[in-house]
């Protein structure tokens, strides 16, 4: 079971959280101005990297807040968690 650091509550077990898909996909301000292909890309295309992945989590059974995390999909280790609206941390 993973240990996840909620930026608001600290280290908590995985069962308190739900996964929210890839992070930093900003909903377009004016969706109507997008072509069908662009909109489909926003809806469906995901980066699915082997390695560092920025993703959303929600501390559903805790503070109920969404936050972002960097997780290595190869090792399944969390490298960082940070609040919505904050910059993706530079791991280098």
């Amino acid at each position: 079971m993973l240990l996840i650091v909620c930026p608001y509550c600290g280290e908590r077990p995985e069962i308190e959280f739900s996964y929210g898909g890839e992070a930093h996909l900003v909903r377009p301000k004016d969706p109507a101005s997008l072509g069908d292909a662009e909109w489909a890309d926003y809806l469906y295309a995901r980066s699915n990297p082997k390695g560092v992945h920025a993703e959303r989590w929600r501390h559903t059974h805790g503070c109920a807040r969404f936050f972002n995390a960097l997780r290595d999909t190869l090792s399944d280790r969390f490298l960082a968690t940070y609040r919505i609206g904050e910059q993706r941390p530079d791991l280098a």
Partner: protein
Amino acid sequence: MSANFRTAEDGRIDRSRPLGFRFDERSYQGFPGDTLASALLANGVHLVGRSFKYHRPRGILSAGADEPNALVAVRRDEARYTPNLRATQVELYQGLSAESQNRSPSLAFDIGAVNDRLSRFFPAGFYYKTFMWPRKAWERWYEPWIRAMAGLGRAPTLPDPDRYANRFAHCDVLVVGAGPAGLAAALSAAEAGARVILCDEQAEFGGSLLAESDATIEGKPAATWLAETVALLALKPRVTLLPRTTAFGYFAYNMVGLAERLTEHLAEPDPALPRERLWQVRAREVVLAAGAIERPLVFPGNDRPGVMLADATRTYLNRYGVKCGSRAVVVTAHDAAYRAALELHRAGVAIAAIADLRTAANGPLPEAARAAGLPVRPATTITGTGGRLRVTAASLAPLAAESDRRGAEPLTCDLVLMSGGFTPSVHLFSQSRGKLRFDGELAAYVPGHSVQQERSAGACRGVFGLAAALADGAAAGEAAARAAGFSAARARSFACHASGFGTGGIRSVLPNAHGAKAFVDFQNDVTADDLVLATREGFHSIEHVKRYTTTGMATDQGKTSNMNALGIVSEALGKPIPEIGLTTFRMPYTPVSFGILAGPSRDELFDPVRTTPIHDWATAHGAVFEDVGQWKRARYFPAPGEDMERAVARECRAVRQSTGIFDASTLGKIEVVGPDAVEFMNRIYVNAWSRLGAGRCRYGLVLREDGFIADDGVVGRLAENRFHVTTTTGGATRVLAQMEDYLQTEWPELEVWLTSVTEQWAVIAVQGPRSRAVLEGLVEGIDIASRAMPHMSVAEGRIRGVPTRLFRVSYTGELGFEVNVPADYGRAVWEEIFEAGQPHGITPYGTETMHVLRAEKGYIVVGQETDGTATPDDVGLTWAVGKTKPDFVGKRSLARPAMRAPGRKQLVGLLTEDPHFLLEEGAQILAAPNQKAPTKPLGHVTSSYRSATLGRTIALAMIAGGRDRMGEMLYVTTAERPVPAKVTSPVFYDPEGARLDAA
């Protein structure tokens, strides 16, 4: 009468208290401290099972968790019948009753053994090759045959009556294995002040020390040092000792699963005790001290009862006081077998010969054997064994003449000791995702690079011998404590005198292992030839060889076989072992029960049950309930003698003709509040909310961003900045999560607060032409006259003194109200309304009637009419979509070409030609009655009911281009034949909506 192979003294058994037990209908005697295996061996019983595929007689090979052969079932009663237990791990208790498996009718005479003589018809990949053709034979012959032959044990037929506990724990240092390395590690870590958990799968701590005969530690006999050390650890308040506890899985972030067995060893378990306890331990640091497993040798007839691992016979002798035979032949590639031979010799077992596969046998142990007069034969191999149910002879031959079997010399014996060296137990290390490294000298994999906060110590990382294991364990304990933040940690050192461990053990597959039955995997009956055949047939990766031959795939996961299998494949392919690869070690290390994994989550605790404030009233009034998610909902209220159909017909008529009362408390409710509430609602819902006045309601529809319907429900605007949102019963969590998601991550600038109030409000629906009359006398401060309170309005006031949010809404098509009151008053207000409704014939109704009434009106149920691929237009709800709003969740997706393409499935009604024929929900709809399969159906039936009001059956359906098919006759599949049904409007009753105001 069985023979007695018990020594006169020694061992850790309590000889003062004999225990009676049964094995296969025969009675025997053993002692406390015995395992079933040691007690059987003490009685001269080696034959304990039949093998899986060939039904060959099999005996006890090992003395521990690695045992592949001696699988037995232990039966306390039919509900506590446990199959496939290793006899080497079953602790003896008074009255224990065990039976052998895979035999019919008896162990000594088994008809399945015919497979053995037919074995040339059962090569590697037999299943894949044989059961391909003809297809028909599968059901009739192959499958029943495989099931009958291939079962491993049988399951109990009654539910498990025992209780299983579950516990979470944290510690600084978890030590797995309480042998010398583990004990030393625990001491070092505990003395540094760390919180320590020490677990071991056995009943007693000590590991190899339990079978130690002559070693001393710190000047004391090993057994004394062991007792003192365990006592010392037990006194430390920050140390938890867990015997009979198997670390079965190593999970992410240093979470280790432990299975503790609390009552399995007791003759009469205290019923108050749980049978097993699952520990989920989160450790800062882990020390793995799991020991090593002796490797069998692969030679013809190596599976005959009486052929045993050499070191196991030492354990039986020193720990249990059992001689495994009276005349032994020893075959070895490792010095350790000499130690076994010497100790057995001293106990009075004749050693017929020690065949050493190495060209020279010169270490201190071989020299000691020679000095004791044991016949040591270097460069000698074993070519086979004789005997039927027990070994009676072993044939030895010089290695030089290995191809010439005539050179073999049969020696009479009743015991064969074999040793191919030792394989470090890297299972947990590998589960932790650490990288293994091949050690050529040991011919084994050892822990290489760690990924988690763990370290291995002692034999499980290839450090053998008592003194070395103690030192290695102490160092690992110190390092673990230091890493966990205890900087004062220091490694203990132990003065230790023990006979050397010796060296050797690389060659496990003997030269003449081919062409005869030389077993690699005992439990799955895989021979050396099977593996070679697999490589010849093109399987070159060990993962493929494993699956094709099933080697290593039995319940022991190849503990004794994997390294030998690798060696054979490596030889056959002419490639070094590291290039063959290694199969994955998976949890559990040894099998764990379903009971311990389920823990308390069974029966009524399996899933939480949610009930409404009116639940007890419904129960008292005879309601039949149905499960809707976790909710219990009253489905119908049968009068005496009524079945569901008649009860529902009566309830439906009551609502249409006078009034019904319905518990709608399970509806999801969310309060949306704040200065930006209306803007938020505009963005989340398809509807336009800006011009909805306070005190008015609207049917709301939520889409997902992909444009498909997510949920629906009536929304009331209580004030400028306050909405009372309802959702479907099952959709409440999902809708709130979607709202929170957008609010928190996309529009954090909006000042809106979302509160789930599902359980705060009880909802009492009063529906029917008499509903206003029923409520009139009860409400205070609300004018419920039609002019003051029209359809789709909401008002706050009181009902019998209780604050209420009164909605005038209808999910039935009749004049109706939904009375919301604080949940604690739900039952009281329900009873007041029920009382006031008596003169009007008020009738309680359930979800089934609710469904019929809404279907008569063509109202959809999200998740029944919709399936996650329906747009608002598909189900005829285009009218709900705010046309002038620039954006809302899902709007852009509705404009995608596929969402507007002709031929999408649309909601329609279906009326069967036979007005009494009830279609099945989910049935497929065809254009013609005799379409040949395969055919693409036009759609499917989503709802189907008998309508008492209409005097016939009705159905809703999603049909391609449905709205253009009005009046068409289509065909709906049934179990017998397609039946004709006409496409109609989905609104069957009162299409003008006149009844909403009929009173």
